[in-house]
């Protein structure tokens, strides 16, 4: 096994380890309505951002990182931002640490095909 194969296997194992790692149940729903329950790494934190008005203000960012293989095994394509308002967006749902469910839309995705993971930047979504 090459070092890259080893790194990819490690990344998948780390992302999906919900027993001893940071793996977390995440539901991914495609625009056509098909969905899959996966495990990955999720964040939802507040931070300061710069709206270019000359001052930094509070903002909240959320993201998920998922193994690409888990998505393809579930029959899903790579999530991406959907600009067309006539279509449904890619949606991601996961609980916060207190068990409250939050639903998001995928605003932007950044696949890393070397390690086999995809980082999705999220924005709030109301159904």
């Amino acid at each position, binding site marked *: 096994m090459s070092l890259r194969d080893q790194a990819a296997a490690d990344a998948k194992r780390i992302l999906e380890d919900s027993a001893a790692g940071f793996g977390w149940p995440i539901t991914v729903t495609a625009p056509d309505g098909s969905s899959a329950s996966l495990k990955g790494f999720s964040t*939802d934190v*507040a*931070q300061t*951002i*710069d*709206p*270019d*008005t000359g*001052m930094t*203000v*509070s*903002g*909240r*960012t*959320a*993201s998920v990182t998922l193994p690409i293989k888990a998505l393809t095994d579930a029959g899903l394509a790579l999530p991406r931002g*959907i*600009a*067309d*308002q*006539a*279509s*449904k*967006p890619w949606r991601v749902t996961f609980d916060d640490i207190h068990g409250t469910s939050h639903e*998001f*839309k995928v*605003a*932007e995705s950044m696949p890393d095909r070397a390690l086999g993971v995809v980082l999705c*930047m*999220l*924005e*709030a*979504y*109301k*159904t």
Partner: protein
Amino acid sequence: MSAQITELIDKQDTAEIVRDQIASILRVELSNQETLADDANKDPRLWKLRIFSERANAWEQYLGAPDQDTDDATPLVNVAFDRDAFDEKRSDIFERQATRATFHLDCYGYGQSADDGGSGHVAGDGKAALEAQRTMRLVRNVLMSAHYRYLGMRGTVWRRWPVSRQMFRPRLEDKPIQNIVGARLSLEVDFSEFSPQFTPTTLEYLSVTFKRESDGQVLLTTDYDFS
């Protein structure tokens, strides 16, 4: 060296008064617009704005990504004094200095991505931009209305002028979950600033009469009250 100013400087500069006046005008007029919209059987929430003055983080209310139809999603306006430049030609070195000040009226719109109930969705980024521009539209129309030619301070304010409109978007790498777009209306206002003066002391009363003779000669007659 001893202090020369014997009176407490307990006043606002005109720039501060004008800034507060702009915020007051927006508050009063937009509240009235809500009433007028209600009377016209239109949704008054489209005229509802929250007005702030000199706040750096007024949009904290958007942090929890509130639903679009809640009060926390109401557009914001922050009135801030940015800068001014004094005009020596229209000023004197003693009492009054004319200045041209720029006030920033930062309008923030929030948009939540949501299911449209059909086969598509509402994009939050576009919604936020439209909300910010709608807010800036209301602000500009109020402040540039004929009723506020002098911002309600005739004699103090000589001119107000919308210099520019500019849109602001958060930097791409930050990608907040709330879609917030800013729109800045820069408003120039001309007024004078005043400063503490000597308290005058009456030395003597004089009565002076100017007369012009038929040949154009000017004569001056004075009465002195000797005591």
